[in-house]
Structure formats: structure tokens, C-alpha cells
């Protein structure tokens, strides 16, 4: 008898998940434990194992569909069995003419344009994950024509980009300058006419295309509508809540980074010999914060509502990580009890897991304070936004040279900026300033902190 396979509930608070990619197709033989499809929540991605054995009879949702948890995603049984009884009410067979409810909100125009561009991002995803399949001939052609084969839609066997895919891309103006690549890769093939060297699409062509579209092609809009999914959707919600409900403000500090820089240099030179992991400036900041926060419980807390606060005994540091899918904040638990080396190792493992999409959901929950480092991008000062229900977030800025008078002489020293945003409901400006001062002093004479 045919049975349904449910969309798993990937965490207590998860209500729905998005199917990333079906790995099986109707007609395939399925065993219990076979991976049917991959899916993601706003926080992580997962793979769904089949709970039934037999032939995959019908798939009720397609790639990209948002599916409520614990309802049938597909039916498995013997060939010829009727699976319609298992279909969730109101769902048309996947691939049918009727739009699934999850897509109902989209406009017809958005649907049409999304369908056209869908292959390109898929190809980009392939190359980014290092698994792009391309025939030697297609690769050579792309190289000789300066076409970015990542833009090609693979039509060869097993998802391989073959010659005709590159040729099609060329016909559609697939070649672009690197400056224009971002826009071209996101657009439908053939959206732009290349006038650059070798027929490449340049930034000028983009402008020309945008200018030309309304007049010449009223049926083809010069924009593209898209619904947020997954992580983007979660970020949208969380940031809106933060800035519309939390009275927050930012203090900026700076400290003399001579000490941590020389310590970093020393660790770099000798650390490996001593069996130490790679310890970065960021790790030292995490360490200093974990040691300073316990004295300021209002910053290591959750607002339960406007009038209730929960103080935490241990410091659970959220670390903002930039990933392909958007901002993720893995949590380094009990940071105040961990050594510098442990922090260095674990924070990197968390960041890597976040970037690889394999971060368990538990590792993204329970943060009590967040650190966001934009210093690597040269940001000198910014306003971090609190990740509710936390009460504080520390932004780490770039190191800049600053003048200082020592014995009547002007000398330059490296100064690192810190931007601390706090929830004024939980704590006032003075204690926050004390926290900032103490943190800066600890960092300026970092080695003392280790003793």
C-alpha cells in the first residue's frame, strides 16, 4: 500500500521548510534511509531520508516550495498504486498547471521571469560548491571565447555543461566583464547585448539595457520580483523586530592594538611549534569579551518582554558569519569557561559549519551576546543591530593609525575601533561605558588577561 513521507520537523519552533532539491524522481526505487530531497529552514539545511520503501509514486511539492512540517511531501508504494489519497488537500501534482499555495502570493509576471532565470543560479551554485560538471570541449570553448561557463545552463547528461550550453550562452550574450558579472549572472540569459571587447557585456551595456527596456519591450519588465526564502526571510523578520521595538543606541571606543598585534605576530611565528591553533585578533576579542561580560550581567541577558529580563550565568557568544545564504549567527557556548585556544578552534569550526550549510540548529540558538566583525572590510565605525532578545552586540571595526602625544612628541599607533549597541531598557549609558573601557584596557594589555 502506498504511504506518504512527511516533511520532518527540524526543530521545535520550525513551522515550515523549503525544499531545496529533489534527489529522487517519480519512478525511482526507494529504500528506507535513501535521501529523497534536501530542504532548509531559515537557519540550516537538512536532508530528508525516506521512511518508506518502494517506488516513488508521486511528488507533491517541487524544488523551492515552502512546505509545512509533518505533511506528506511524496508518496512511496508499488507501481500503479493510486497515491491521490495521500496528497495534502489542495495540492495539485507537482509540475501541474496549478500554482502551489506557497507560490500563490507571487504575481504571474514574477513567476514567468523566475522560471526563465532559474537555471543560471543553479549553475553558479555548482561552481561555488566546487562540483561544476563541464565537458573538456565546453570548457575550452568557454575559455577561448572568454565566456563564463558558470552562466551556462547544463543540458548534458548528469548535469554536465556541454558545448551547446556554452554556445547558447554566447548567442545570448553570456560573456560579461567581471564588473557586470553579478548582474548578468542573476539575469535571464540574453537580457543584455554585449558591446565590450569580444562582445562582452559591460556595465555600460547594463545601463543601456535598463534604459531601453521600458520603451522597447513593455511585456518584459526591467525588474524581477522574488520572494524571500529561508534565511533571508528570518533576517528580515528579526531586524524589523529589533529596530522597531528596541530602544537601542551605540557607543564607539577604540584601543591601542599594538599589544594584540604583536601577540598575534608572535603566535603566528611560534604558535605552531608550541602546538597552538591559529589564533586571530577576532579570537582575542571573543576571549576578552567572554572574560569581561560576566561583570555586566545586563549585557549578557535576554529581554523576556518589556518588563522582564533573564540574566545568564555563562556567556554564550553569538558570532555573526557571512555565508552564501545570508547572515548566520552560530553560538559559542560557555565561552567564559573556555581557553583562548579552545575559543580559536571552536569559533572557526562553527564558522566553517555555517558557511558549509551544515550547522546543527542547536548551535544557532541560545546566544546571550553577539559579536560582529566588519573590520576585515575596512569599516571604521558602524551601528550593529541587536539580535533580539539579546541586549547587546559588539561591532569590531578596522585598525587605523592614530596620532598620540608621548613626551611632547606626536607618534602614530594602531587603533582598533569597537561599536557597542545596547538595549537602553536593560542598561544605561554609564555602565555600558564602563564595560567598554574595561574591555579596551583588557585588549590593550591582552597578555595580562591571560595570566
Amino acid at each position: 500500500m502506498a504511504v506518504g513521507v512527511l516533511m520532518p520537523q527540524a526543530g521545535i519552533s520550525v513551522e515550515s521548510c523549503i525544499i531545496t532539491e529533489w534527489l529522487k524522481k517519480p519512478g525511482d526505487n526507494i529504500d528506507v534511509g535513501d535521501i529523497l530531497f534536501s530542504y532548509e529552514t531559515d537557519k540550516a539545511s537538512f536532508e530528508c531520508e525516506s521512511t518508506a520503501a518502494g517506488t516513488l509514486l508521486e511528488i507533491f511539492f517541487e524544488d523551492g516550495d515552502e512546505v509545512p512540517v509533518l505533511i506528506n511531501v511524496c508518496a512511496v508504494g508499488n507501481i500503479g498504486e493510486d497515491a491521490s489519497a495521500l496528497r495534502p488537500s489542495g495540492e495539485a501534482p507537482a509540475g501541474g498547471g496549478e500554482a502551489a499555495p506557497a507560490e500563490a502570493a507571487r504575481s504571474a509576471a514574477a513567476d514567468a521571469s523566475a522560471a526563465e532565470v532559474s537555471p543560471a543560479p543553479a549553475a553558479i551554485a555548482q561552481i561555488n560548491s566546487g562540483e561544476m560538471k563541464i565537458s573538456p570541449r565546453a570548457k575550452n570553448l568557454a575559455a577561448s571565447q572568454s565566456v563564463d561557463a558558470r552562466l551556462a545552463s547544463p543540458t548534458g547528461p548528469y548535469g554536465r555543461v556541454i558545448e551547446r550550453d556554452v554556445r547558447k550562452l554566447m548567442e545570448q550574450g553570456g560573456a560579461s566583464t567581471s564588473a557586470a558579472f553579478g548582474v548578468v549572472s542573476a539575469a535571464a540569459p540574453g537580457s543584455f547585448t554585449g558591446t565590450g571587447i569580444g562582445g562582452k557585456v559591460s556595465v555600460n551595456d547594463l545601463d543601456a539595457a535598463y534604459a531601453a527596456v521600458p520603451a522597447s519591450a513593455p511585456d518584459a519588465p526591467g525588474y524581477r520580483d522574488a520572494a524571500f526564502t529561508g534565511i533571508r526571510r528570518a533576517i528580515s523578520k528579526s531586524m524589523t523586530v529589533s529596530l522597531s521595538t528596541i530602544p537601542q543606541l551605540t557607543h564607539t571606543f577604540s584601543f591601542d592594538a599594538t599589544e594584540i598585534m604583536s601577540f598575534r605576530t608572535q603566535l603566528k611565528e611560534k604558535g605552531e611549534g608550541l602546538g597552538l591553533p591559529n589564533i586571530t585578533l577576532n579570537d582575542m576579542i571573543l576571549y576578552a569579551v567572554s572574560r569581561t561580560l560576566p561583570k555586566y550581567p545586563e549585557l549578557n541577558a535576554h529581554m523576556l518582554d518589556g518588563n522582564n529580563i533573564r540574566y545568564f550565568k555563562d556567556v554564550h557568544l553569538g558570532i555573526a558569519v557571512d555565508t552564501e545564504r545570508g547572515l548566520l549567527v552560530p553560538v559559542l557556548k560557555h565561552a567564559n569557561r573556555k581557553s583562548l585556544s579552545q575559543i580559536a578552534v571552536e569559533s572557526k569550526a562553527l564558522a566553517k559549519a555555517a558557511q558549509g550549510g551544515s550547522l546543527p540548529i542547536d548551535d544557532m540558538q541560545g546566544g546571550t551576546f553577539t559579536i560582529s566583525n566588519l573590520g576585515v572590510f575596512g569599516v571604521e565605525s558602524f551601528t550593529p543591530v541587536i539580535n533580539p532578545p539579546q541586549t547587546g552586540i559588539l561591532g569590531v571595526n578596522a585598525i587605523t593609525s592614530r596620532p598620540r602625544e608621548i613626551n611632547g612628541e606626536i607618534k602614530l599607533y594602531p587603533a582598533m575601533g569597537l561599536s557597542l549597541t545596547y538595549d537602553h531598557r536593560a542598561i544605561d549609558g554609564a555602565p555600558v561605558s564602563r564595560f567598554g573601557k574595561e574591555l579596551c584596557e583588557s585588549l590593550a594589555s591582552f597578555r595580562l588577561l591571560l595570566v
Partner: protein
Amino acid sequence: MPKTQFLDPAELRKPGKIVFEDIPVNAYKKTITQEKKSYSNDDFMRIFRDMTYLREFETMLNSIKTQGGYNGLEHTYPGPAHLSIGQEAAAVGQAYLLTKDDFTFGSHRSHGEILAKALSCIEKLSDKELMKIMEEFLGGKTLKAAQSLYKGSSVKELATYFILYGTVSEIFARETGFHLGLGGSMHAFFLPFGIYPNNAIVGGSAPIATGAALYKKCNLKKGVIVANAGDGSLGCGPVWESFHFAVMDQHKQLWEKGKNGGMPILYHFNNNGYGMGGQTRGETMGYDMLARVGAGMNPEQMHAERIDGFSPLAVIDAYRRKLDILKKGDGPVLLDCVTYRFSGHSTSDANAYREKEELDAWMAADPLITYRADLVKANVAKDADFDTIWETTRDVITKVTRLAADPEKSPYISFVKTPGIVESMMFSNEKVQSFGDRKPEVLAPMKDCSRVKQIAGKERFAYKNGKPVSKIKAYNYRDALFEAVIEKYYEDATLISYGEDVREWGGAFAVYRGLSEVIPYSRLFNSPISEAAIVGTGVGYALCGGRVIVELMYADFMGRAGDEIFNQMAKWQAMSAGILKMPVILRVSVGSKYGAQHSQDWVALPAHIPGLKVCFPATPWEAKGLMTTALNGTDPVVFFESQRLYDVAEEFNEGGVPAESYEIEIGDVNKLRDGGDVTILTIGATLYQAVKAADILKEKHGLSAEIINLHSMVPLNYEKILASVQKTGRVVLASDACARGSFLNDIARNIGELAFDYLDAPPVVVGAQNWITPPFEFDADFFPQESWILDAINEKIVPLQGHVPAVSNYAPVEQLRRAKAGV
């Protein structure tokens, strides 16, 4: 099935009995004194001297192999040494009456026979003839070496040094050997003295020698053939097949005047009692006395006789009588020459299978002792004279061995200086229109042949005015083969052709139909159903200087002639360092409708063996051009045909098949259709499936396929293949051979390596299932169909929209499953 001979039931069903004649056993009884009428004292002594050369030569080899030196010289030699110490009287007796026009063939144990025949020829040839032979051989290199050892004025003595040095150098693998050391101990020979190759395969010389006899007989050449073999070889099928080939009634009853008569061949069995360690009398055979087997072969009982091989004079006596029989045209002859080897099978033989007592008893009868004693007793010479002979022999053997072992004076061929030396000998690649020295014998002018007249009325292209020509009116594949063959029959007097049912029937598939009207029996005849002998005799015929087409009917029967194809036909050109030529065409046909043992495309088997050219035409134009090229060449060609194709007309070559003679280079490929999207390479009848697949690709999928037929496998010029693949980037290879081990895999690999950067997908091979061939009704389940080619393209190369896969399954998981299951 000659119509002239009536199978009379009254005669065949009448009672009677078969009466055998007595077979003489060791009948020779003469004493030395009685023989003095036939031999001078010098003759008696020379027989002894020749035996000492044979004995000492092998004693030297034995010493080098087992002691690492000889007579003060330190030397080692890693190769084989199958010694015949003890058998010298048989060899010297055999050679005594033979001339350079009599060809001897040997076994793996034939050093003695070679040296004895050479010494016999040196005695018989004039000084002038000897000098000419020595000067002309390998540019006089061997002669120069002999001259460095012998400064005297006797040409015969010089020639003795020459032959001993050439032989030992060949065994030591030196460039100064008779064939540059490429043959070695088991493949040595020296054609100017009528010494034809030894053979490392037991009984291997029997069919080849029989072919040599065929050459003598068909081309009216002087001399007889002696095929040497051991008693152990009587267990080998090809030896029996050779007997059957040699005793065929047609030689005497059907062949035309001048060529009728028995085969001029003597099968000489050196019966030393052991086939390696197996005792032939009492253990591994059941004939009791080997000579008995002659009684079963023909009414003449092959004139079989057992002789005492330990008495040189008994052997000579037998040869005197048997050579008369052969020259009268009453051959073949079988001699059971009883002898004994004192040495082991090889130098690694521990003699576990015989008692010392037995050895001692034979050693007591050693002809070098008993014959000497008999000569002394008969006052032919004093005992001390024999010591003088021994001294000279040892001195000569020591000198030639020293020289041959010297790496500077007798260097090895250098693969550094001449890396291509063996490569250059694999094929002779010559073009010889005719090997004949006379006008070809035919029964009537070519134009009188009814088949020739019929073909003249046929359309030579498949289409006329855009319409297909009817099958009966169209010049077809079998006509194309016939045309090439009959033309050569009228050009080369040496050309003969035989196999099963080739004459009146014209071959099972009627390729030769009509040929018997104009070609006499001796040039076109039915053979016994003896595939090994059919191919092996062809090899012997060709290496004597004749051109031959042999036919095996079905390719599946190649297994029956495995040794002859793979070890003999393939290897003799290079093993002889290019001295021998091998203009043999072996026609085999890939079957259809006849099940698992009659339907196999075995192209990969000969293609794997170095030394064979392999081709497989798929159109009449290819068939005529390739057959013409093969017939003009000097190399062995395994010529595949297909029973699916004999009726096809030429539908690709514009203008059809030319009436005049033309060649197609073996190694070229035939591009039949231009295309840009995918290349389809085919072998054999699968071409026509590929054409259908290409039509579907065009009509349904808008893809243009380039079709290239590979009519040659070895050699193979990849240029056009690579140019096509570079253009299309995609290639599927298809043939009727089972996919595993198909020759197409070799081509696919080379394309993968040589055109990798141009490939849009991996080269894909489409072959038959790795099963037995099921009955014809299931052809479509077993042999590649056009749908399989499309499936393979769809799965592995480029998805074809709307294509519904057929029974074939090219999915990787299925490929893995089949490989794992071995199917």
C-alpha cells in the same frame, strides 16, 4: 563434392574387409663391410665427423646453461636449450641425402637437424655456390666473422665455421645470428641450405611443412619436404590434420595432369620415447609403435616404417627408399625413427621420470661409440683417427663459441641505436603484383566464366535514377570479393585458394561461385575440415614464396586454428628478421542466424596479436578495394566478412564500385556521411544500424551525424577519426562484437587520450551483450540496433528530447552491475 565421382551405393554397401600391409620395424640389417659398396671411407668418416659437431655443439650449450661456461670460457645464456644429445645419428642420417632443394622443418629440439642439414649441403655444394651464399647472407656479416676464425683456403671448412657461428650467435640472440638473434634456439633456420624454421610449438611444423609441400607441388618445384617432430606431437590435432591434408585423395584422383600425385612430404618423428616427461609408449599414447598410425591414414599406409635412429646408416637407407617414393609422386611418408635423448627435455629437467639404468643402457648404444667401434672393426679407420676428429671438432666449437659470446665482436641488436628494429619487421609492407615465375594456369579465359558475364550485366551502384536497384540486378558485396580474387588468379600463378567447400559450392556463401569453371583443381580446392591445417598450410605455402587465400567459413572457427593464426601466421615475418614473407589472406565470415557458435565478431582477437593485419569491409566498394590491396601485399591479413552483408549493394560510394582494379589502403577509414553534431564509428554490419540511427537523429532531434566506417583495425590511421571527433566533440562506436574486450574499446581509449580537449562527452562503445548469441529471433535483444545507438547518445552524450529508451540500458548503475556480474 566433385560431380565426376559417383558414390555408388552398391559398392559402398557391399561386405568386405580392410587389409593392412605389414609395417617394417627396424628392418635394416647391413654391416659396414656390406655397405662399403655404397659409401667410401671418407663418407663413413664424414658421417662420424658430422655427429661429433652435433654432439659437441650441444655439449657446449649444456655446459653453458648448467656450468656457466665451456672449455675455459665463462659465459651464461638465459634462453631456452632443448637439447638432442643422443639423437645425432637420426639427424645426420636424415640430412645425408638431402639437398638445398629439399626443405627441412624442425621442432623445438632441432639444433642437430639444422647443423646436419647444413653440413650435408656444404658437402654437396660447389665452392663457388657456397661463397655466393655466404657473401650474400646479411651483407656478409656472418662470413666476415667466420673468416676471422678460419684463415685456411678450404671453402667447405670456412662454411662449417660460418654455419656453426651463425647458429650459436642466433641462439645467443646476437645480431650476427642467422636472423639477428630474433628467432633464437627454437626458431632458427637458414633458407639458402633449405633449412626452414624450427618451431617452439609442439607439432607446429607439421601443417607449415605440409604447406611447403603444397608449394612444391603447385608450383612444380624441385625437392621434397621433411617435417621433423617428436613422438609427443602425435597427441596434437594439427599434426593429424596435416596428415589428412597430405593424404587427400584429390591429389592423385582430381588434380590436373602435371600436378596430380602424392604430396612430396616426409613426416619424420624422432621417437625418443618421451613427450617432455610423459612416456608416449606405455603412458600417454596407445599406438604401441608410432609407425602404426600411418596404417589408418590412406591405403598406402603413408609408407610408414619404424627405423633405428641410433644407426646413421639405417636412417640413410630408409631415406634412400622413401625419397624415391616421394619423387615418384606417391607421398606422403611417415617415419618412426627410434632414438633417445641423453639430455633432459631442457636443461632444467631433473629426469624424475626415468631410471639411471635406462639412461645407461642407451648410452652404451651411443652411436658415437658403437658406430666408431664398427668402423674400426671394419678397418675403415684407426681408433686414433677418431680422436683427431674429436680434437678438431672441439677446437672449432670452442672458437665459434668464444666469438659468439664476445659482446663486441658479436653484439646484440641495439634497441638504443635502432629502437625501431623489431617494429620495422612486424610487417613487410611490400607490394608484389605476382610471386609467380610462369603464366598462371587457368582452364579458360576470364571472360568465359559465367559469373564474370553475370556481373557484367549488373548495376554497380545501389540506386539508378534515384530508385533502388533490385537485389538480383545489383552488384553486391560477394561480387566485389569475387572480382578482386579472379583478377589476381589471372595475374599471379602462385595464387591458390582453399578451405571447406570452396570449389563447386564456391564457399558456403558463394563468393567463389563460378570460379571452378576457369580455375584448375590445384589452385582452388576443397580441404578436409581441418581448420588448423587450412591455416597452417597457408603459412607454409606463403613462407616458401607463394600467395594464398585460405577460408575458415565462420569466424567462430578461428578457435580451431588458434595456434596457426596467432603463433605462426602472425609471428614468422618478425621472428625471421624480415627474411620470410607471409602473403596469406585468411577469410573468415561473421555469421548470422546460426546461434552462439556461428555468430561472433572476433575482430578483437587477431587485432590483439602483433603481426596480423586485420580488416572488415562493410560495403562492396570497401570489399573489392581491400581484397585487392591484401592480394597485392606481402603481409598476413585476417579478412573479416559478414553474412549479413554478402547481398548488399554499394549505396555510399557515388558511381558505385569501379569495374577496374583499385586499392584501398589497409589502415584508412571510410567516411560515409558528413555531419557536425556527433560522430558514429562502426565496424562491420552495424554500419547499417548506424545509418538508421543517423536518420532518426536528423529527423527527430535535428542532430547531424558523421558516419565513419572502420574497415581496417590493424593498422589503423587515426587522423580522419580524430579530425571528425575534433569537429563534433562527440563519438559513439558500434559493432556486433560483444562489448567487453571489443576492439572498439581500444579505439575509444585512443580517442579519449588523443582528443580529450575536444570531447563534449566520453566516447561511448555500443556492442553486443556479453552473452551467448541467442537464436536469430532475438537478434534485436543481442546485437546493437539503431535504438541502442540512440540510447547511448541520450544517456551518455547528449539527452535527446522525447527519446524513449529501448531495451539497452547505458545507465552507469547498470554498467556497473553488468561488469560485476560478468555479463
